């Protein structure tokens, strides 16, 4: 391992047929034990980056080291150090959960005597002990993701790659997976490289976030720092009596510029400094004799960051983008 860096990427490029640059010169590093969230819309280059970092695709140019090994030249060593759950949960519908664990353990070279125990231990951890003898074709989406995670963890990897691990999951399964990923990082020191198109996921889970768009990293930092960079909190007030609207607006004027209604009848003001102004705002409203029905402080979101950096909202981008990356990349025979 190079110092404390689990992943180091410099000038990484991956081109596909027709000169499409799915990954267009990215630089990033992930410290050991860190959860790194790679956020971007469909087709931004997330999955291609994961495929290059996990040795499934050779880079066109640039350098990437994972666990201290060069992904282009030391593929086998990289693979021995990483666990991977790809975007499409690739399970064998004819095999049971336990048979998946046995096959994976065998191919990973785990000694025969330890295979069953390791498999059972991980199935237990992801809550699939009871379903372990059922064919994976009978599993729900959440169960498939959990089995996928257990398979990725079987050989005790130091670095875990999760490509959109919660896409298509219900809220409960998503939260359970977040808890497990957080636990792996905190308790076991596992480095996690997580791609997602969900702002909330990156915000809740990641120590640091890299925002990728059209194959380039457009912003990187802790979620808090990124949000602070592009925007300030907004305070939103709804007076109990609509007649107090003008007085409310007047009372809020010294604290920042008005940014329009967040909801009907509300007055929203982007604060000049930070959330510490809140106490003064409450006092000002009191002095102005405004009876407040609703008062809320809205922190900027990562979508505001995405908007500021790319000129469009992440949700909008996700819907609008055709996916040259995730769509074309898997055809590796042609690439």
């Amino acid at each position, binding site marked *: 391992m190079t110092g404390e860096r689990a992943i180091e990427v410099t000038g990484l490029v991956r081109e596909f047929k027709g000169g499409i640059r799915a990954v267009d010169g990215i630089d990033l590093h992930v410290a050991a034990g860190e959860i790194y969230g790679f956020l971007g819309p469909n087709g931004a280059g997330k999955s291609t980056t994961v495929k290059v970092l996990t040795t499934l695709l050779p880079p066109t140019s640039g350098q990437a080291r994972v666990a201290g090994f060069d992904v282009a030249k030391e593929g086998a060593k990289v693979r021995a150090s990483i666990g991977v759950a*790809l975007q499409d949960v690739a399970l064998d519908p004819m095999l049971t959960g336990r048979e998946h664990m046995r096959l994976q353990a065998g191919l990973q070279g785990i000694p025969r005597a330890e295979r069953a125990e390791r498999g059972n231990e991980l199935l237990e951890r992801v809550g699939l002990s009871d379903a372990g003898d059922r064919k994976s074709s009978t599993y729900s989406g959440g169960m498939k993701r959990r089995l996928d995670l257990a398979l990725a963890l079987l050989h005790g990897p130091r670095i875990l790659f999760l490509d959109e691990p919660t896409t298509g999951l219900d809220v409960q399964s998503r939260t359970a997976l977040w808890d497990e990923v957080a636990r792996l990082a905190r308790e076991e020191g596992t480095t996690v490289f997580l791609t997602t198109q969900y702002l909330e996921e990156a915000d809740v889970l990641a120590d640091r976030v890299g925002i990728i768009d059209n194959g380039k990293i457009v912003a990187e930092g802790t979620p808090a720092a990124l949000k602070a960079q592009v925007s300030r909190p907004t305070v939103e007030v709804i007076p109990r009596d609509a007649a107090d609207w003008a007085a409310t607006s007047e009372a809020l004027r010294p604290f920042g510029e008005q940014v329009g209604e967040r909801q009907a009848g509300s007055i929203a003001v982007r604060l000049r400094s930070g959330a510490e102004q809140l106490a003064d705002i409450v006092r000002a409203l009191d002095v102005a004799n405004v009876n407040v029905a609703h008062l809320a402080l809205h922190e900027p979101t990562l979508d505001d960051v995405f908007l500021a950096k790319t000129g469009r909202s992440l949700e909008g981008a996700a819907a609008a983008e055709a996916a040259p990356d995730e769509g074309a990349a898997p055809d590796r025979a042609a690439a």
Partner: protein
Amino acid sequence: MTALASANLPSQVGLLAGRAITHIVRAPAQVVFPIVFPLVLLAVNTSGLDAATKVPGFPTASYLDFALAVPFMQGALFAALNGGQDLARDIEGGFIDRLALTPMSGAALLAGQLGGALFMGVVGAVIYLLVGLILGVGIAAGVAGALVLLLLAISISFAFACFGMFIALRLGDGQAVQGFFPLFFVLLFLSSAFYPRDLIEQDWFRTIATYNPVSYLVEGIRSLVITGWDAGALLPAFGIAAAATVLFLTLSSRALRTRLTRT
């Protein structure tokens, strides 16, 4: 991090062949149809084409004896088709990426896949031979000849499986694999499978049947049933099966390298 020795090749092959066989056993349609359909066709042909044996020069008085070679070919085709589709599904669904992320060697993937084909080949060949014997077919080359017949049938099955594997790796699409197989049935019908080559009257048909390697595979099996030991029929059959195996295994190995671009 646990220090792990790479699983050795035989162990990897065993695991992957075990998986292929599990697929066959758990999908009864994969076993029953490929085995039953050729037997049904054998029954139909035997009752419908028995009069052909009256044609002067027909090599045997029983059409069943003559036609028994055909199910071995059809069974091998179905098994290769199923094996190819299985592999194509692994590619389409991304399971091959899961395997590629382990220390699995490419050779183990190919050998494991062929392990499943071998299993199907053995099961099918034994059943066809037993059904033939039960229906009164005599093997002119005797007991040793029956064993050689099994060996030849399994070799043919293996060669076809190598072709199925190559197509799957090259195309990576189950439907495309399926689309390739009618071609094989045409080759079977344009061979000496249903009528002896020297009795085919149409010149073009006889020419195609003469250049069609499938004719020689069928005739190799048939010779053991109706002629006895005939090196002139057996050597080309084994030779073609071996050559096809080498050719398609080499092509498969190349196609796998393209498919598994892991570094």
